[in-house]
């Protein structure tokens, strides 16, 4: 590991990690609601919210798969130092995956869990440029009382790809990050046609 590349992470490691974990919990409990994460550190190439999630969720027991766009020496060195997480070479071995918006059209290979242990699936951390510039879709399901309009800037092909991989209770949970905000998309959320 190159010590020159290391940078400070959380200012208050314990409380900041708890805040980012809490934000991730809330994001998955209330799908489609944007959760702020104000105390996130900066790392070149990663949005503050993405980096804060990595610092809060990853440790030595969670192999991470890095999309090629994030596979820089700087990110590798800092994740290895602050999280201690192993980097998975194959998607099948990953418990978390870090993806960009261009990696969403092919979600093959990630672990969907199994019928007995659906919780062992791979959780996708997806970094976007923003969370509200796309066309509106109507989300419904657990955690949403009446239906919620969400405007994620995602291609139609992503929703088809997600639908193809859905076999409840197996499936993929996704956390979208942009800037200091994150938004959860658990496998239980149903996506309806766009709002009028």
């Amino acid at each position, binding site marked *: 590991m190159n010590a*020159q590349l*290391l*940078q400070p992470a959380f200012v208050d490691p314990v409380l900041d990690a708890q805040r980012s974990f809490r934000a991730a919990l809330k994001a998955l409990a209330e799908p489609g609601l944007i959760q702020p994460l104000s105390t996130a550190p900066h790392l070149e190439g990663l949005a503050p919210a993405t980096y804060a999630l990595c610092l809060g969720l990853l440790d030595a027991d969670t192999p991470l798969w890095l999309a090629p766009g994030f596979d820089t020496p700087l990110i590798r060195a800092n994740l290895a130092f602050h999280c201690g997480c192993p980097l998975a070479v194959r998607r099948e071995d990953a418990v978390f995956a870090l993806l960009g918006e261009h990696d969403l059209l092919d979600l093959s290979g990630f672990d969907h869990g199994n019928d007995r242990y659906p919780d062992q699936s791979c959780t996708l951390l997806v970094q976007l440029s923003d969370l509200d510039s796309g066309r509106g879709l109507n989300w419904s399901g657990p955690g949403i009382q009446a239906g919620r309009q969400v405007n994620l800037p995602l291609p139609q092909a992503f929703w088809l790809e997600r639908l193809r991989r859905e076999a409840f209770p197996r499936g993929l949970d996704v956390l979208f990050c942009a800037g200091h905000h994150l938004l959860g998309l658990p496998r239980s959320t149903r996506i309806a046609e766009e709002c009028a």
Partner: protein
Amino acid sequence: MSLSPRQHWIGVLARALRSELIPHEAALRDADYQLIRAPEIGMTLVRGRMGGNGAPFNVGEMSVTRCVVRLADGRTGYSYLAGRDKVHAELAALADAHLQSAQPSQWLSDLIDALANAQARRRAQKEADTAATKVEFFTLVRGEN
């Protein structure tokens, strides 16, 4: 097993007393530096082998304090030490960073040699004290007949 010079000084710094490092605090902190990993206290599991070569077993947990600093010129100093002394951890990491300069001779002679000598004296003193309590056991002949 031979130690590299850096292994030697990191070990000496970890075993030093806090009171021995405090006199050097001003000199150690007299540089631009940032905390990559602020001093933090945690637990580590100590494992041992019976007789030094038996099967490994867990002896128990101990508290450990660690710290990583980087000087403005990019030298990165690490420290891991037993106990819960954050100031000691930060000073030891700073000393490790300073010692990685091209000419560490001044720091070595000022700090490390003095600390190593003091530790050797303490160890010799303790061994002498312990040796004085040595008891020679001998077997009493039991009156069997």
